[in-house]
């Protein structure tokens, strides 16, 4: 799971590299001509969403999301295990809820055919990376929960 989510996160960083390339191209173009990259803000926003959202599942799989263990590190291993299970359940509840209700909102955007302001990118395109990211992150938490139940020392 960690490898798969890492691969997904790395694929997502292509979005960041595209954003860098387009931004530099736009600056270069407008400094030597009257040309610009059309819809730069729309495209860069989409690239940022792709890169950042696809990285969220990796954050859970690799335990990269910020948490404080100052107090729990002194607890007995069994208590720490219970807390990891609770963390996975709460994370799943929040992420699955966000994915579910987000999906409903995305279907509304699809029904209304809403588009971005400058070059008319369908807003659904912005929803897709968000829903993939948080949906997969919810599944990663199911995996973390099952892993913790089966082999508590697997971390």
């Amino acid at each position: 799971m960690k490898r798969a989510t890492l691969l997904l996160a790395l694929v997502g960083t292509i979005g960041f590299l595209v954003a860098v390339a387009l931004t530099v191209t736009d600056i270069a173009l407008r400094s030597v001509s009257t040309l610009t990259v059309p819809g730069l803000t729309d495209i860069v926003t989409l690239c940022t969403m792709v890169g950042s959202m696809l990285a969220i599942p990796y954050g859970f799989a690799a335990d990269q999301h910020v948490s404080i263990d100052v107090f729990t590190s002194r607890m007995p291993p069994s208590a720490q295990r219970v807390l990891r299970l609770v963390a996975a359940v709460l994370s799943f509840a929040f992420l699955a809820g966000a994915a579910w209700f987000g999906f409903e909102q995305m279907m509304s955007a699809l029904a209304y055919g809403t588009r971005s302001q400058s070059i008319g990118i369908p807003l659904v395109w912005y929803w897709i990376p968000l829903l993939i990211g948080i949906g997969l992150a919810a599944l990663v938490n199911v995996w973390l929960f099952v892993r913790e139940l089966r082999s508590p020392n697997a971390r």
Partner: protein
Amino acid sequence: MSAPLVGVAGLVALLILIGLRIPIAIAMGIVGIVGGVVLNGWVSLGFVLGSQPYTTTSSYALSVIPLFVMMGAFASRAGLSASLYQSLHSLIGHWRGGLASATIGACALFGAVCGSSLATAATMARVAVPEMTEIGYDRRLTSGALAAGGTLGILIPPSIIMVIYALLTEQSIGQMFLAGMIPGILAAGLYMLAIYVMATLKPDWAPRTTRPDKINRLAAIRQMTPILGLFLLVMGGIYARIFSPTEAAGVGAFGAIVLAALRGQLTWQVTRDALIETAATTGMLFMILIGTSVLQFFIETSTLPTVIVGWIGDLGLPPIGVVVVILLIYVILGCFLDSLSMMLITLPIVFPIITHLGYDPIWFGVLVVSVVEIGLITPPLGMNLYVIGCRS
């Protein structure tokens, strides 16, 4: 239970969840959702969970975050830190406590392209600790200089935490950066002064080295040129209004990649590591921003900030007294919470108070970032101390 009391109960629950090692983003999200349902009924569940993550993350202004993170990730892997340290070693290493001062200077300059305290402390520790140890610097002075110097990464612009403060409070990122410049330089200068005093009082802690000849000093200045050039390009572009902060971040990321390539460091492994760091940091930051937006909705509907503003007014404290109390709370919280989370959890309550008292939000932002710095070197959660401990 009244709405403000629900707000207080929510904040207590949040601190308990964070203390139980629930990821901070999730703790904020869960408290925000449960609190929202208690205050507004089930109808708020679908609205908040369905719309807040999208509204928060689909903003062009947020693009500045991954691009600055990418700039720092490539800069820290391009060998720039070693060059900086060697250059400053040649220029000021012969001063009393010169190597420790060179560490502070290198941290300040590296922080100026890196934007992260942890990355600055980790990178500089790798370079400075072996050299200072070999020359005979006391371990306490070495670690202290690195820990303090590392904190400059979030004060000297471009700083990720300043960007997030500016985005959340709807302030100008450029003005935040400009306002952070002088306090950052001042902090670096004062750290160097403290090292000078310490080295004077305890000369055996900081053995003096010989001054290199003029050729070596000129070579040292030349070595610093690329990193200074990158900093001037990014910050100069923002101040001269040639670029917006997001464009400057894009130019900075591009510049850092080009510098890494020119120095022959842009291997597949370096690129992969830098991209993984960019993804992991950005994913973590965006997840926290999603959690914050849900929590913020709950805090606002609880009317807790308004009640606190009224309560502070009734106390009759002078405005500066209120600021001092807030800063003391930050120092205490900094012992237990990481910098970003502490700022994000408290801002929905503290920011309305500050604006109500008539203080400038930019000024307060720099003040908060400066105080948050203290948390980075305060036990038991001084993250810089852990990073340096691992490297030394």
